[in-house]
């Protein structure tokens, strides 16, 4: 693919690569936009967008293609909505290998198909060599939020329980090990996945859900701090209950990183009414994506909105809200 190649080349790319892989009735109409039906009944639309920039483009457990599908579906899903449609726009760097592009689009297509959420419109641009990093993918998702579901980062309240759907930090460490070609004893695989099925099961279980989030950049630590501040509450985590795969824990330990701040792409944070916590745990664990779920902490009143964690010897430390990098602070 070369930059500035005319409409014919682009049409060829679309015909030969995107259409067969992503193809569906909407795309097939070939219009500038797509016309789609909405579900019946009272409800609202949810829309979310995410630009995906990841290095390396291919990593254990996934690639930028499926990541761009999962990421946006998850943003829609944690609002409590059922994701319906996606759009995708690609920015390709001149000279990017067609074979790699094909792999990425195949992965997107498979992810969209598995999730049952079609890509209904798209766009592709090519930029000069050196002005992109292979490929960037922006996706936008539209979902349907039935009446009666109200999830928001400001709804956590004292007495609520905090759950995660599985081990944290896998995605961040998988990316790092691939990017830096670090050889760990057991390979670490990204957790990237679409969470709307898990969310649907949790909501269907009748649990009073207050907040859902997917802890992507900044990880569990940053996401919980955001929620604590939005809701004006404090949180207390139990370190021993936070699931971390041994390989991730060992790698973090050695590299001097904290899994609390490592990104996840297929994990759900659920803040639910305290009395429903066991029910919520059971609902998560009954779903294949939630077998590793755990109750990791609780919400309490705190005018300072601190997120704290009880550690080994009964000590409690503050889980910081880092504004920047993890700066060393020893003095």
């Amino acid at each position, binding site marked *: 693919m070369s930059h500035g190649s005319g409409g014919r080349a682009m049409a060829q790319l679309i015909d030969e690569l995107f259409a067969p892989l992503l193809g569906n009735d909407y795309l097939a109409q070939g219009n500038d936009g797509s016309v789609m039906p909405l579900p019946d009944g009272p409800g609202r639309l949810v829309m979310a967008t995410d630009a995906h920039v990841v290095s390396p483009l291919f990593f254990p457990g996934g690639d930028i293609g499926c990541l761009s599908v999962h990421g946006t579906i998850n943003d829609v899903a944690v609002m409590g909505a059922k994701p319906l449609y996606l759009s995708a726009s690609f920015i390709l760097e001149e000279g990017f290998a067609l074979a790699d592009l094909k792999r990425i689009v195949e992965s997107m297509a498979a992810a969209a198909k598995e999730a049952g959420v079609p890509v209904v419109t798209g766009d592709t641009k090519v930029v000069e060599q050196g002005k992109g990093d292979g490929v960037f993918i922006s996706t936008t998702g539209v979902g349907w939020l039935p009446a009666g579901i109200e999830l928001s980062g400001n709804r956590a309240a004292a007495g609520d329980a905090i759950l995660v759907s599985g081990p944290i930090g896998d995605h961040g460490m998988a990316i790092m090990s691939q990017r830096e070609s670090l050889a760990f004893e057991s390979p670490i695989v990204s957790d990237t996945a679409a969470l709307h099925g898990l969310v649907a099961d949790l909501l269907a279980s009748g649990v009073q859900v207050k907040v859902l989030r997917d802890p992507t950049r900044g990880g569990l630590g940053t996401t919980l701090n955001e929620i604590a501040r939005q809701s004006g509450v404090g949180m207390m985590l139990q370190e021993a209950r936070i699931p971390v795969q041994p390989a991730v824990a060992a790698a973090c330990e050695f590299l001097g990183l904290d899994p609390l701040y490592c990104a996840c792409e297929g994990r759900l944070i659920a803040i639910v009414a305290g009395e429903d916590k066991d029910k919520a745990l059971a609902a998560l664990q009954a779903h294949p994506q939630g077998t590793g779920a755990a109750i990791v902490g609780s919400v309490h009143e705190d005018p300072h909105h601190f997120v704290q964690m009880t550690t080994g010897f009964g000590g*409690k430390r*503050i889980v910081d809200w*880092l504004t920047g990098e993890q700066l060393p602070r020893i003095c």
Partner: protein
Amino acid sequence: MNDLTLPLLCRRVRVRGLVQGVGYRPFVYRLAFELGLSGWVRNDAEGVDIEARGPAPLVERFIARLRAEAPELARVEAVEVREAEPERSLPGFLIVESRGGHASTAIGPDSALCHDCLEELFSPQDRRHRYAFTHCTHCGPRYSITRELPYDRARTSLAPFPQCPACTAEYADPHNRRFHAEANCCPDCGPQLRLLDAAGQPIAGDPVREAVRLLQAGKIVALKGYGGFHLACDARNGAAVAELRKRKHREEKPFAVMAANVASANALCALGGDEAGLLELPERSIVLLRKQDNTDTQLPGVAPGLQWLGLMLPYAPLHYLLFHAAAGEPEGLAWLAQAQDLVLVMTSANPGGEPLVTDNAEAVERLAGMADAFLCHDRDIVIRSDDSVIRCDEGGVQFLRRGRGQTPRPIKLKDEGPAVLAFGPYLKNTLCVVKGREAYLSQHIGDLDNVPTVNFLEETVAHLLHILDVEPQVIAHDLHPDFPSTRLAAAFAAERGIPAIAVAHHHAHIAAVLAETRYPKPVIGLALDGIGLGEDGGLWGGELLRVDGADCQRLGGLLPLQLPGGDRAAREPWRLAAAALHALGRNGDIEAFVARRYPDQQGAGMIAEMLRKQLNCPPTSSLGRLFDAAAGLLGLRASQRFEAQAAMELEGRAHAWEERHGPAAPLTDGWNINNDGHLDLLPLLAWLGECDDADLGAARFHATLAAGLVHWAAAAAERANLSTLALGGGCLLNHLLSRDLRMGLQARGLAVLEARQAPPNDGGIALGQAWVARQSLGR
């Protein structure tokens, strides 16, 4: 005396300083009485106000003695005299009612029991024989029991204990040393000791005797002191000490001990110079003393592997009673001059790094599983304070930590200025309130990695502002955006609509020295430290600065080393050794080197790879980390159990070498100053990696480092046309380094400013922040 031919004078005298709550008015009264003067004395908002009438020479003598003979705990700063018309013309001398809404200039620090009170404590005829809450106007707790000012009984934790007739009579008698002793009490009317078991149930019998029995049986007893609880055990009982370490989850960090008296201390450590005097000061700080050959045998496991032992003498009656019981309850004070066998480990009861436990119920709950018994009482601790820690070197006394016995004594500044509140650093946090020419550096607050310590910081801010009656006009804080102290500062300033000024950590280190030395001009600052955030976003810690008030210009830094694994590298000196090899261009040697020095250490290949790939390897110019690298290169230890452990061992080995061979010579060509002003010590590090005599290596490391720093700083001073150097930062607690720097710089004709009133480490940062904030307002 009453020679009526002498001219009669009437003088009004204003005494300023720490003159309230210390027996100053009774002292004035007795002095006037002795000289036969008439007049009156009263407290007011500015200090003590006196009117003295009588023959001129006697009034003059009176005025001279107001300062010269002031009570032990008083700090007279000014005696201002003017002529005046008499306000009252009655004969005789009176103590009159305090005047002014808030009647105090200052509240005193907590102070050890005085000699007179000790005599009573151990005379069986006295009504306060073995009474644990005895004190007088010359001694006893102050800061820790005062809720607010003015300092009178109703505002202290003695409020719930009305005085009995006997105590009331003492309190009202100007000739009695308990005259206006606000916390006066006796066994009939005052607080009582209780001994509780691990479950909080009372243990029958005399609490002191039973507590001593438990201690002698190897048990761990929580003791309620002035500023908070200690965990105590028999320091001579290795098993008890090991058990305390296990329960406190404290592997190797040294414990401080309490010995009965100087004679007992002398049997443990060789006291030199002024150290006996320092131990006996009423502040009763922990004094770091050099161990002797058999100290570790006498006190197994108390401070293993270090050259220093932290030791303090008893300060509260409770402590004296324990030693007294262990000595068989002799009568009189003779036993207190003799060496006593009992030595107690006294470690702060601060589980999980949280603030000191102060409350009885809280003690039973928070110290569950740690203490076998609690020796406590019903006099509340209002404000907690950890023990102060000091050390004496060639340059005088140096603080490692300011706390009980020191706070809230102010540090005097050169100039007046707006009121400032500084929120301090992240580790070893203290805060600082500046009012007029006085800087009130708070007691040690702690590391702000947990919420109770952050809350303690907030409480102390409110308490100090309240008792000092200060409304800050400007706020100062660290440059690091994520510190809880920074966030509290920003919120505090926003609420009041006042400016908040961010101060770089090492600028503050130097500024703290300028503040206490009242040095008004630009200096070259040498900040030798752990890590702090620099103006350029870098991790600083070995910096050459030009500090001119609020302006701080970086002239150079140590050549950076990388921290493979960030903060983790600071706990594992072998990682810094690897970083040094990498910096020397010898990444390929890392695995072989680690295999040679640390045969059991895994992961050297991965560290080499992290360094090659710059993976979580932030660079730092910290001297603290350079010490770690040196210790790592010599093979001293792979990991540290407490802060600066490796650096302290390195210093210990250098000292040992010096004892045998005299001062080491610097390594020839051990350092370079490169074009961007970096001091590059890589040649020295390369040599250390090959050196198999760790004592020699340590000695030569210190000597070369000092020589390089002296040369570097002196050259910068010459270029900047300055002749004064300020030394700041935690590395100055290294005795050899500070000695060699001081001598080397002075030998080049430079004046050296050092931290003496505030700690040179992060405990002094708040003072520096406050000073910079004030300077920046003035510009």
